[in-house]
C-alpha cells in the first residue's frame, strides 16, 4: 500500500468539493480517475493488469449505474452530449475528439503489436521446502532446531557480534553483491541474466519471513539439487559451501538482516502441528 498515493488521491477528491459549479460529470470523472490512480500506482506490489482491468470495469459499471439511476443526472448528461455534438461553438473540440479517438485505438494496437515476446507464466513456489537437516563440511546442521550460532552474541557480546557482522559485510561484497546488488534489492550487475531473478532481501516476503537456518541452507546448497516437486526451479545460485567456511556463511546471514533491518522469523513451536 502506497500511503503517499492514497493521500494524494484523497486530497484530490476533497479538492474536487471546492471546485465551483462542479457537475455530476466532473464527479464521476474525478472518482474514476481517483480509483484508477489508486489501483494503478497506489498498491505495492502493483496489481496484475488483468485484475486492474477487472476492477476498473466494475468501477465503470457502478459509476454508469449511479449516473443513470437518477433521471436528473441522466438528462443533464444527455443534454450535454447532445449540445456537444450539435452546437456550433463545440465544432472544434468535437473534431478534436473525433480525431483523437481513432488515434488512441491505433496507439493501443501499436503497443500491443510492438510488445516483446513474453514467456508463458508458470506458477512457481518462491520458497522451496527445506530439508530438516543438511551436511556442511562434515557437520550436520539441524535446520529445524538450530539457530545461527552467532545470533546469541547480539545481546551477550555486542562487540564480538559486530565483528561477525563486519566479516559478513566483507563476504557479501566479495561474493554476493554481483547478483544481489549494492543495496540487496536483487538488482546486481548480473541480475538481469537470470530467471528467476536473484532474491530481493529488502522485500518483506524474502528473508523477513524466513528463519536464519533457511537462509543458511540456501547459501550453503544454492540452486543445484533443489527438490523438483511443485515447480520448475532453475535458480542459478551457486552452492557456497564449496567456497566459504561455515562461519562465513553464518556471518553473511547476520549481515543480510543487519543491513536490511529485517528480523529473522521467530521460531514457532513445532509441537504436533503436523504440517511439516
Amino acid at each position, binding site marked *: 500500500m502506497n500511503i503517499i498515493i492514497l493521500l494524494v488521491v484523497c486530497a484530490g477528491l476533497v479538492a474536487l468539493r471546492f471546485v465551483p459549479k462542479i457537475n455530476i460529470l466532473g464527479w464521476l470523472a474525478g472518482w474514476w480517475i481517483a480509483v484508477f490512480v489508486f489501483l494503478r500506482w497506489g498498491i505495492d506490489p*502493483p496489481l496484475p493488469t488483468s485484475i486492474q482491468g477487472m476492477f476498473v470495469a466494475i468501477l465503470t459499471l457502478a459509476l454508469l449505474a449511479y449516473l443513470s439511476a437518477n433521471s436528473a443526472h441522466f438528462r443533464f448528461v444527455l443534454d450535454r452530449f447532445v449540445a456537444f455534438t450539435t452546437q456550433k461553438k463545440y465544432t472544434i473540440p468535437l473534431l478534436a475528439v473525433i480525431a483523437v479517438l481513432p488515434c488512441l485505438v491505433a496507439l493501443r494496437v501499436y503497443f500491443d503489436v510492438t510488445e516483446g515476446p513474453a514467456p508463458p507464466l508458470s506458477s512457481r513456489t518462491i520458497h522451496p521446502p527445506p530439508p530438516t537437516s543438511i551436511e556442511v563440511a562434515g557437520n550436520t546442521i539441524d535446520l529445524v532446531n538450530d539457530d545461527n550460532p552467532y545470533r546469541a552474541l547480539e545481546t551477550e557480546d555486542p562487540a564480538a557480534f559486530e565483528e561477525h557482522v563486519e566479516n559478513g559485510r566483507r563476504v557479501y561484497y566479495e561474493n554476493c553483491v554481483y547478483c544481489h546488488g549494492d543495496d540487496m534489492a536483487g538488482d546486481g550487475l548480473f541480475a538481469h541474466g537470470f530467471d528467476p531473478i536473484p532474491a530481493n532481501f529488502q522485500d518483506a516476503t524474502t528473508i523477513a519471513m524466513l528463519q536464519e537456518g533457511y537462509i543458511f541452507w540456501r547459501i550453503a546448497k544454492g540452486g543445484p539439487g533443489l527438490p523438483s516437486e511443485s515447480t520448475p526451479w532453475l535458480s542459478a545460485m551457486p552452492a557456497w559451501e564449496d567456497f566459504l567456511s561455515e562461519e562465513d556463511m553464518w556471518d553473511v546471514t547476520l549481515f543480510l538482516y543487519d543491513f536490511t533491518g529485517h528480523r529473522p522469523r521467530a521460531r514457532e513451536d513445532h509441537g504436533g502441528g503436523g504440517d511439516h
Partner: protein
Amino acid sequence: MKLLARRLPSGVLLFLMLAGLALVAFWTPDAWAQEAPGQVEYRSFPVVGSRVVVWVIAQLHLMFGAFVLAVPMFALTIEFIGFRNGDKRYDDLAYEFTRLLSVSFSFTASLGALLTFFLFILYPRLMEYLVSIFDWTFMLYACVFFLEAVFLYSYYYGWGKMPKWLHLVIGLCLNLVGIAIIFIADSWLTFMNSPNGIDAEGNLLSTWDAINNFTWMPINIHRLIANICFGGSIAAAYGAYKFLGAKTDEERAHYDWMGYMGNFIAIAALLPLPFAGYWLGREIYAFSQSLGIALMGGTFSWLFIIQAVLIGNLFLAANYYLWLSMERIHGAERYRKFTKWLLASITVCFIVWATPHSLVATVEEARAMGGSHHPILNVLGVMSAKNTAVNVLILTTYLSFLFYRRANKEATVSWAKTGNIVQFGILAVVVGVVIFLGVYGYFVEASVRIGLSIPQVSLVLFAMISITIIDVFMFRKAKILGPIEWGKIPNRAQYALFFIAITFAWTMGLMGYVRSGIRQHWHVYGVMRDTSVDAFTPTLGYAANVVSVTVLIFFAFIAVVFFLSSLAGKKKLDAGEGTSS
C-alpha cells in the same frame, strides 16, 4: 374433461407416449433384441456432438421447467392475497402470470420429450443403468406429469368459472404436483453426482437410498428457490416488454406494476439463495472431498469468478431498478442521498467477490508480486472475505428495499425516533460483527473458519427479520406524502429488468454446467465412467459459449411465448370483461 383433452397440447401427449415407449423398450429388451442390446454404449450426433445437443436441450428443458413450476407458486400467492384483501388488481395480475403458463408448459413437455429421446438414443448404456436404478420412479414421473397437466389447465381455464376456494385448492394441488415433479427429476440427476444406495459394483441396494442421496435435498431446495427467482425475473421481463409496447398510461401503469412485482419476487427469493447454495456446497464436500475440491479449488474455481460477476451484476441491476423505481414515488427524494453509499458498498462487495485467489499475471508482474499470489489480493481471494462480501451485499440490497418501502411514508408513531435508532443499531452491530467474523476467520484454523459462516448468515437473517418487524409497526398509520405514480418510470429501468432476466438465465445455464461438469469423466460419479469422446472437460470459454447460445434460444422461445400469450389476451379483451370474479 373433453374440453381439456382437446386443449391439452400435443406436446404433452407426445412426451408421455415417447417416455412410455422408451421405458417399455428398456424393460423388455427382447423387443429390440435384433439390435444387440447392451452392445451400443454411445451413438454420435452430427456436427455439434452428442454432449452439446443433450446439454442444450436439457438446459432449455430445465429453464422452461423452472418457469412453469415457479409461476404457479407466486400466481397462487398473489391470487390468495387478492382473495383476502379483495383487490381485483391482484387477481388480474395472477391471471396474467398464469396466461404465460399454458404455452410454456407445452414447450417444457416437448423439450422433455426431446431430451428423453436423445438421452436414450445417444447414451443407451447410461440410460439403461439409470433405468435399472430408478425403474418405478420413471413411471411415477409420467403419472405425476399427467396430473400436472390436468391441474395446470384446470387452474388456467377454470379461472373465474368455479368457486374461488376450489380454484385456490386446484392451484395448491398444482404446486404440490409441481414440487413432486422437480423432486423426482432431481433424484435422477443428483444420483449421478452423489450416488447412494448401491454396492461397490454399482448394483442397486435400495431405490429410496438412491433417491435420498447426499445432494438430493440441497438441490431440491436450491432449485425451488432459484426457480422462483427465475420465474419472477421472466415475469418481470414480460411486464417490461408490455410496458415498452404500451399505448396508454393505464397500460403503462399496469405493466410497470407487473414488472415491479415480478422483480420483487425475484429479488426476495434471491436473498436466501446464496445460503441454499452454501448448504449444497457443504453437502457436496460431505459426500466427497474430491468432488468438493473439484468444484471450488480445481478447474472450476474460475467458473465461480464468472458466477461472481453474474451475481454482482444481478445485485447491482436489482438495486439500480429500485433506485429508478423510487422516482415514481413522492417523498423518495429524501432517500436519494443514500444511493451513493449503497452503491459504494455494492461496488466494494462486488470487487471482493470477484477477486480470484490465484491470479493471471505476466512474468514481470509475478516477479513484482514475488509469486503467483498477491500479498493484498490474497486476502480478498479466500472464502472468509467472499462470505462477508455476500452477506453485506444482501444487507445492502435489503436496505434499498427498506428505503423503497418507506419512500412516501412518514412515521407518525410516538417512538419513531427510537425505532429508527434501534433499527440502525441492529444494522450497524450486525454489519460490524459480520465483518469482524470475516476478519477473524483469517486467524483460525480451517475447521473453525468454515463454521463461522453460520453465525454470519444467522445474523443477517436476524437483522432483516427484526428490522422488518420494527418497520411494519413503525409505519402503521404513517402519513402518506404522495401517491405512487405507476408508469412514471424511465425505459432504462425496463431494460434493467431484461438484464436481470438474461443474467438469471445465464447464471442458471452456468450453474447447470458446473453441477454436471464436476463429475468430470464420470457419468455416475465413481461408478460409471464416461468412455465417450466427450469425456474431457471443455474450457470455460467453450462452456460459456454453449450457455450463451442456449440462453439466446431460450429467449427466442420466450419471445414466442410472450407473443402467443398476448394473442390470447387480445381475444379475451375482445370477448369482453367479466370472466373473473
